[in-house]
């Protein structure tokens, strides 16, 4: 069935209170660190103080002698994941690398890399035991920055990595793990045909997802190998699969229970702790809880890449872009896998380009292994491209919004990486920007306005859902996606809409790995799309079953029953004259009409729609301090269909805030030995409430017809434009173009002073 007609909807599109809300505002909700088990031990991890070093020896004697210490682990307790088993199902990560990331083998590759772990009867004993573990290192030269790591004489992280994607195949190992390239048309001819060509270079620093909840898990392995894991993650099936592969256990032996999750943004789509806790539990025979400190989160969990991006644009005087070439160099950290490919693709996807070429390099360096961060790769590439498009607009003296309108993707545009766009809303975001109140508001001195656009492809994939009609007519819906932003409310809305029952009578549950079928992780902006598709289909199957039961009760054919407003009706006067039957009435007779009323669905969702967005940002620059105040921000996004509008707005506002932090203040500061100097929230400066204005959102609905309710992924697109929107606004306010992130006060002040040297203090 299709529910694309908004006027026919009763519940979807309204803003009820989320079903898990009361627990969250009263402190009852259980997050990863909130559970205990009888006999529980506390685990702690010993981490490398060096950015690059050989592990010469590890001695546990003194640690084991400390009363209260019950188990220790090191690499010796883990079997390597063989290359042929490095991937599992459709999961994207290399488990051979992930295993080495969870516990170093032979070499440590970044400061904070785990080398050993201990479990003890109290956190303080575990802490003392860490100091008693003696690790001898042979320090090696390290390399941090992406271009330094690409140099032929750079210290090598892995001598087994040869650059993929280049011909002829290299014979020397390299820190460049791969090169990717996408092209369309003839860029050289395009540049020759241009009236103006500009070439610019942009850089970004690594930033962390900075979820407020540190990683935490509680793992219990019984004597027969049966294991229970309670942890916060973006996917309990991922936790189960990855732990099974890294620890050499059968998947069926592990039950992974999803805790409530205190933020992930991609950083919890992998694991760090569960395999270590598993081994400690196995060796000690007791449950083991490990909770990271904030310092550990910063030192040892994936930031996203720092990068260098070069952009060359050619255009006619009338604004039409004739050619674009981008070269992206992204840090991968200690193991391969930066999101450089996404960076290449997404930054150009906003435009209809006749000729384009984009090349990306994935580069190893002695930093923590990069993890996904909200639209991975896209914000970095778009910072560069959207800034360069703004620079082009200024050179051509064409309004930046107009330039995007001229060159923007339309229905039928073929993107540089191949697909042809259908059912997209990009031009509508431009139209809405042009019509916005924001754009009409005048600016004052030292104030400026910046525009930027963005794209994210969103994801589909595997989801399972079950819909159970309970004996009293209430409904339980079980699905498999950890709820990071209010998705349970949307699931209940869709199910209640299909069934025709009140929202409050549907209880949505995120099931553990034994309670529901396999479901891919929460991420890629896929839960409302794929998870929503699954729960909708499960509810429809339940309706079919309810009609069948009504037919049994009435002794007529099931084809003669229709379902309306939560009740079964005879389909017409010929079907017979019967009083309508409610869910409760049919459910009350379930045993007599065939048994329990449940429907279960497993899908691999296809047809996810891409997301496009345009942002408008006003800033005020303080020329005395270089500090930038965000005065006003409007995010305009094609959201498909807003199932629960408050949570869609929330995704837009949250992505904007993260982008603003990335633009203005966030960065990792390393000393000359590759050690992190700011592993805490004081000096790793994320936006606080007083930094931000209200964030206005305009939701444009171009429904995605491949989803029953028209939903499109919305969570990631909003982080893509803010860095360029802010940079463009600063340029508008000061005439100064900042091409290196973050645009923090010392940097902006230096640029302002260079432009206009200060008079000596009076």
């Amino acid at each position, binding site marked *: 069935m299709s529910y694309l007609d908004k006027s026919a909807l009763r519940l979807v599109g*309204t*803003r009820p*209170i*989320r079903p898990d*809300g*009361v627990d*969250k*505002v*009263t*402190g*009852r*909700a*259980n*997050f990863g*660190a*909130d559970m205990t088990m009888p006999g529980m031990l506390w685990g702690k991890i010993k981490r490398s103080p060096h950015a690059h070093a050989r592990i010469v020896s590890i001695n546990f004697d003194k640690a084991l002698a400390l009363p209260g210490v019950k188990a220790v682990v090191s690499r010796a307790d883990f079997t390597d994941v063989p290359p042929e088993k490095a991937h599992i199902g459709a999961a994207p990560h290399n488990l051979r690398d992930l295993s080495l990331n969870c516990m170093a083998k032979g070499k440590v590759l970044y400061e904070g890399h785990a080398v050993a772990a201990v479990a003890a009867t*109290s*956190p*303080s004993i575990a802490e003392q035991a860490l100091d008693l573990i003696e690790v001898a290192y042979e320090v090696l030269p390290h390399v941090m920055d992406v271009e330094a790591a690409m140099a032929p004489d750079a210290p090598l992280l892995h001598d087994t990595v040869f650059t993929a994607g280049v011909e002829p195949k290299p014979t020397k190992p390299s820190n460049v793990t791969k090169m990717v390239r996408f092209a369309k048309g003839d860029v050289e001819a395009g540049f020759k045909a241009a009236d103006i060509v500009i070439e610019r270079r942009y850089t970004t620093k690594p930033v962390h*997802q*900075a*979820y*407020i*909840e*540190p990683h935490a898990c509680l793992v219990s392995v019984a004597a027969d190998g049966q294991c229970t894991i309670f942890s916060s993650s973006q996917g309990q099936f991922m936790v189960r699969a990855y732990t099974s592969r890294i620890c050499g256990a059968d998947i069926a032996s592990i039950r992974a229970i999803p805790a*409530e*999750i*205190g*933020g*992930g*943004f991609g950083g919890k789509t992998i694991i760090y702790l569960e395999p270590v806790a598993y081994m400690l539990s196995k060796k000690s025979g007791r449950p083991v809880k490990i*909770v990271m*400190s*904030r310092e550990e989160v910063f030192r040892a969990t994936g930031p996203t890449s720092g990068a260098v991006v070069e952009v060359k644009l050619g255009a006619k005087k009338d604004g039409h872009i004739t050619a674009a070439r981008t070269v992206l160099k992204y840090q991968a950290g200690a193991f391969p896998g930066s999101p450089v490919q996404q960076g290449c693709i997404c930054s150009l996807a906003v435009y209809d380009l006749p000729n384009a070429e984009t090349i990306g390099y994935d580069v190893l360096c002695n930093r923590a292994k990069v993890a996904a961060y909200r639209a991975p790769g896209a914000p970095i590439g778009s910072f560069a491209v959207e800034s360069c498009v703004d620079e082009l607009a200024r050179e051509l003296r064409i309004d930046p919004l107009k330039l995007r309108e001229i060159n923007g993707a339309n229905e039928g545009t073929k993107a540089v990486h191949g697909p042809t766009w259908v059912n997209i809303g990009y031009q509508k975001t431009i139209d809405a920007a042009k019509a916005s109140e924001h754009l009409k508001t005048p600016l004052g001195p030292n104030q400026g306005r910046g525009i930027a656009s963005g794209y994210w492809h969103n994801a589909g994939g595997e989801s399972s859902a079950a819909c159970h009609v309970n004996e009293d007519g209430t409904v339980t819906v079980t699905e498999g996606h950890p709820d*990071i*932003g*209010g998705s349970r409310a949307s699931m209940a809305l869709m199910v209640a809409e299909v069934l025709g029952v009140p929202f409050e009578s549907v209880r949505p549950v995120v099931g553990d790995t034994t309670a529901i079928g396999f479901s891919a992780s929460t991420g890629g902006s896929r839960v409302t799309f794929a998870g929503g598709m699954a729960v909708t289909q499960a509810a429809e199957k339940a309706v079919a079953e309810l009609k069948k039961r009504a037919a049994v009760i009435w002794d007529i054919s099931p084809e003669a029953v229709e379902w309306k407003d939560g009740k079964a009706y005879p389909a017409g006067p010929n079907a017979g004259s019967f009083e309508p039957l409610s869910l409760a009435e049919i459910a009350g007779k379930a045993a007599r009409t065939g048994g329990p009323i449940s429907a279960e669905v497993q899908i691999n969702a296809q047809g996810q729609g891409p997301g496009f967005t345009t942002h408008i940002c006003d800033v005020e620059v303080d020329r005395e301090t270089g500090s930038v105040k965000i005065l006003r921000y409007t995010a305009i996004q094609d959201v498909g269909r807003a199932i*629960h*509008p*408050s*949570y869609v*707005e*929330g*995704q837009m*506002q*949250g992505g*904007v*805030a*993260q982008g603003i932090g990335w633009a203005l203040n966030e960065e990792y500061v390393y000393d000359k030995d590759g050690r992190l100097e700011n592993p*805490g*929230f*004081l000096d790793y400066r*994320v*936006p*606080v*409430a*007083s930094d*931000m204005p*209200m*964030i206005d959102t305009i939701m444009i609905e171009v429904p995605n017809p491949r989803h029953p309710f028209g939903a499109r992924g919305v969570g990631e697109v909003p982080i893509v434009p803010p860095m360029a929107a802010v940079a463009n606004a600063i340029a508008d306010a000061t005439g100064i173009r900042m091409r290196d992130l973050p645009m923090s006060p010392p940097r902006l002040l230096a640029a302002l002073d260079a432009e206009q040297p200060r008079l000596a203090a009076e």
Partner: protein
Amino acid sequence: MSKQHVSTVINGEPMEFLCEAQQTLLDCLRDELHLTGSKEGCGSGDCGACSVILDGKLVCSCLMLGVEAEGHTITTVEGIAEGDKLHPVQQKFLEHAALQCGFCTPGFIVAAKALLDENKNPTEEETRYWLAGNLCRCTGYDKIVRAVLDAAAVMRGENPPSPAT
């Protein structure tokens, strides 16, 4: 080393616990008293997820030792509602969708209550600066600030309109 015995009043109830000298009040609330509503986000007083009210004053419980609680009165997030009657701040957080993952929410609820106990009519700017010690990574603070301003209105006896249904 033997543990210290601490007597205190938490959420209106006399409570006692044993702790090591170096355990923070946050550690004691969570691990000794099983009041896990207060969260550790940073352990260094920068994120506010551990916010409690100590003798009427907003503090980070991770910056206090458990033994320092001896003889004092503490309110945690678990003590903000009265039975099943939510405090206006809690109710408005729900209506405004001022939480996404919910991890920072206990700290914000406590901090907002402390604000409104002291200032019945805060401006948007005063609210933002009071809450600057509570980090949220999910919401961008927009709906949080709206919820707190609405709760203030309710507590002044006004009847602010509900967020659009």
